[in-house]
């Protein structure tokens, strides 16, 4: 009885050794393991099951034999696995890990929205909220409340699109009406930026499109000064264009601010003497936007007492920022939505 078992076990060992010799891959080892150790049909498992049929007295000895078989097979399987990792791949399956990768699609934000979100983030860090307003506006919010007197040439400087059948409605020419709406609905302190599309009747050319984007800021509180405005704009230029860029803050005019200012930054390509400079055309300075202390009449129009509060407002063209920062030669490329430019800059 015991001899029979011993012979069977030896036979299995010989058979296994033979099979082990043909093993070429991890797959082969797994299959072998399954063959010998699977719960239902494994050969070694079968031997363990048969132990139950052996008379109790003989069981310890039989058990030792079966355990020996288990150890024999499992150790050799483990040993066979290690070298496989180091062996060259089996014949017929050549690989080269330096072959080209399969590119997956990756998209981009539109450069104008990308620039807009960078500027928004800068001002959000200073505590500004983002405010919004309608693109179709009333003449009141767009001009009258902002101190553009009727018949004044200043209204002409902005060629306006008028809406048919609605005599008081226009497409807004700047995002300043958002500031008016916000001031009329909130008490100071007010700290907002208003980004969005604006519209002027300009024939499209390299530096003008009839639809473009502005971002305007407004801060109204007690004791706000012109120096605070200058400081805020210088801070913005440092953060957005880098510490090496100089700023120039000079007098200007807008109907809705007094005093008013324009901010220029130093050209980062030429020192100001190259008439062919594609960015500044030899002026050495680039205008980035207007600003000023909110005109007392505008505050009054919004129900804010200019004797108690003061504020500043500033605005920038997002297209202009994009052109300055990235050197886009023709604005219309941003509206053709050529994927090549969106990919480069978005």
């Amino acid at each position, binding site marked *: 009885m015991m001899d029979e078992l011993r012979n069977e076990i030896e036979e299995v060992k010989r058979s296994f050794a033979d099979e082990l010799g043909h093993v070429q891959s991890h797959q082969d080892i797994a299959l072998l393991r399954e063959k010998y150790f699977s719960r239902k049909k494994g050969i070694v498992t079968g031997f363990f099951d048969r132990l139950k049929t052996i008379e109790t007295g003989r069981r310890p000895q039989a058990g030792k034999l079966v355990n020996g078989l288990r150890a024999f097979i499992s150790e050799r399987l483990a040993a066979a696995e290690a070298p496989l990792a180091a062996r060259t791949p089996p014949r017929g399956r050549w690989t080269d890990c330096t072959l080209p990768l399969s590119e997956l699609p990756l*998209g*981009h934000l539109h450069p104008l929205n990308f620039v807009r979100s960078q500027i928004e983030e800068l001002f959000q860090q200073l505590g500004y909220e983002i405010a919004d307003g309608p693109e*179709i506006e009333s003449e009141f919010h767009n001009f009258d409340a902002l101190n553009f007197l009727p018949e004044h040439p200043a209204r002409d400087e902005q060629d306006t699109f008028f*809406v*048919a059948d609605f005599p008081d409605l226009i497409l807004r020419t700047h995002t300043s009406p958002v500031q008016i709406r916000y001031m009329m609905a909130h008490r100071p302190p007010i700290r907002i930026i208003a980004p969005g599309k604006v519209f002027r009747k300009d024939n499209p050319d390299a530096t003008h499109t009839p639809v473009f984007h502005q971002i305007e800021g407004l801060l109204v*509180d007690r004791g706000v000064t012109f120096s*605070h405005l200058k*400081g805020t704009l210088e801070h913005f230029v440092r953060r957005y264009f880098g510490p090496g860029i100089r700023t120039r803050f*000079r007098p200007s005019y807008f109907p809705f601010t007094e*005093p008013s200012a324009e901010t220029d930054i130093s050209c980062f390509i030429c020192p100001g003497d190259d008439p062919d400079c594609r960015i500044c055309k030899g002026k050495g300075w680039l205008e980035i936007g207007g600003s000023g202390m909110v005109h007392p009449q505008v505050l009054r129009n919004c129900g804010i007492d200019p004797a108690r509060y003061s504020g500043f407002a500033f605005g920038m063209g997002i297209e202009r920022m994009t052109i300055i920062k990235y050197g886009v030669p023709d604005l219309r490329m941003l509206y053709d939505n050529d994927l090549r430019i969106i990919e480069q800059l978005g």
Partner: protein
Amino acid sequence: MRIDTVFLKQMINYEGSGTELAEWLPTIGIEIEAVHGSDRGVLEFEITPNRPDWLSHYGVAREIAAKERSLVFTPLDLPEFIMAKKPLPFRVVIEDPADCARYSGAIILDIKVKPSPPWLRNLIERLGLRPINNVVDISNLVMFTCGHPLHIFDLQILEKKEIRIRRAKTNEKLVLLDGQEVILGPDQLVIADGRKPVALAGIMGGQASGVTDATTTIFIESAHFHPPVIRRSCRALGLKTDASYRFERGMDVENTITAMRLAVKWLAEDQGKPLELAFFQDRYPRPWKPQVVRLEKGFADALTGIAMDPRSSIEILQRLGFGVKQRGGHWEVSTPSFRVDVTGPADLVEEIIRIHGYEHLDAELPPQAGTAIVPNRERELEMTIGQHLVAHGFYEVINYVFQAPEENRPFQLESADVRLKNPLGRDFSTMKAALLPGLLRNCRHNVDQNVKRIMLFEIGKVFSRNQAVQEKRNLALAVTGEYLHRDWRQPEAPFDFHHFRGLLDALFRHLRWPVEWLASKHPFFDPACCLAVTAGGKPAGHVGRIASGHALAVGLEQGVYAGEFDLEQLSANSVQRSFRMWNRFPVSRRDFSFLMDKTISYLQLQRQIDGLRPESLENHELLDVYEGKGIPAEKISLAMSFTYRGRDKTLSGEEVNEIHGRFIARLAEQLGLIQR
């Protein structure tokens, strides 16, 4: 406007070069556009609408002297008028002083009209004008020097010895200096003689009364006109001249005599003899009174944020021409006649700080706000959508807000279009009702550039009207071409509708927006491939294959899959995160292969499954769709797998078999399915 720095030096002791001045003038608010002349001595600039007083050498000289304390502005020497012993009978009549606050007229007999002397021709050219003759050129030079436009008539043409400033009568005609005939009406202010209009006041003179080589006697006009009247006429007639540009913005009513005297002085020098005025009258029905602005002490410091020496501030205002009276806690500042723009204390602060120098301002950030900012949810949503789509391969596009009327037609189903009164052109005349036509054009543009994979999205406003104009924000997406390019690992994978739906579904799941997809028809999409999307039971948009008619209309032959959604509708029902314990009992899977009539859509099968679904049916998947060999022509073969899991106990194999068997039997019965 041009300034000749050589000429300027006649009125101010400035020693520097034109180039230096060009660097320096922007710091007080005059932005230099260009520098002309071989000596780079001619500076060109645009004025801001509030400073018409800069449209003259006098104005600029005054500004320079205000800034530089060592410089003095000295207006040119003006001799007194020489009146003729026997004045000519003539009269000047202003019908309405509201239109014309002052009119000075003078007559000089015995003038020889000839080409200007070289110095004058040269100066006129440097100032950007064409020399015409001595009289016209001197008139222009007066305007550039002291800022006030004159007009000079040939006296011979003036009838009835009268100049009358009046409104035109309806249908009165006038041929202008440039040859144009204009039809006038009561909105136009004219200079007329006793019989007919001879000039459009403040804008342009008539051809008949213009100065020519044959002129020997002249009438000089120096007047002030009400800006809105001039402006309205210019708009109505489509005219714009150097004179009207100045009158529109408001001239200095106290300057008219100075201008007249300058003209007479230069004419006399040109003619080589002193000139008598055969007639002179100054009608001044509305004398100017200075405006007084109250400036509180400390206001300038408070507004600028820096401490300025009050004495220097007063000095600055005085050098600019303001009169300052100290009154205890404030100053009374009276405005000069050439400053039409100063009406309040903030204007005075601007004058002070502008001359003092913006470089003296501190540059500090205002103190940080004490309150937390309110996040802009719409913007955050846009950013999340944008970042998700970008990560999935989409490029964002931005299109114009208007398009051609026919591009709106498939979309304006319940409302009407919003149109522009003065569009750039027909293709830009209608506010868009949908974003997709723009994306379709973008697809075409990029297909032309040989781009093989095009995945676009746009978030933007769309417009419609019922009683009032409405704006709402939409999200639109479009894909065309191949999703994956062919390479050594895989063949190319062109986009198809189911893949596009998968991309949309990924977005909806990321944002936690539950939606339903329903079979639908929409004029923009192929009737065989169009679904409506609803959120919270309300319509939120449509998706599908763009109808080939619309694609071909923009020159696209390949299929484009697209969708457009109302963002507010789509996002209104987003699901909050919350914990729900998952079922831990084991699953059992059963497969079911069957034939179904092609007339039944998968959506209908889905509905039946949902309707008949046993409680323990957790999930189902479509594994295979097959038609062709061995399948009857009117049928389609489907293989599905169903996953069962007990709610509160483990289901045995027999139990699952029973549930599954009953379920598919009823399903088959409802839809006429034949099991395979």
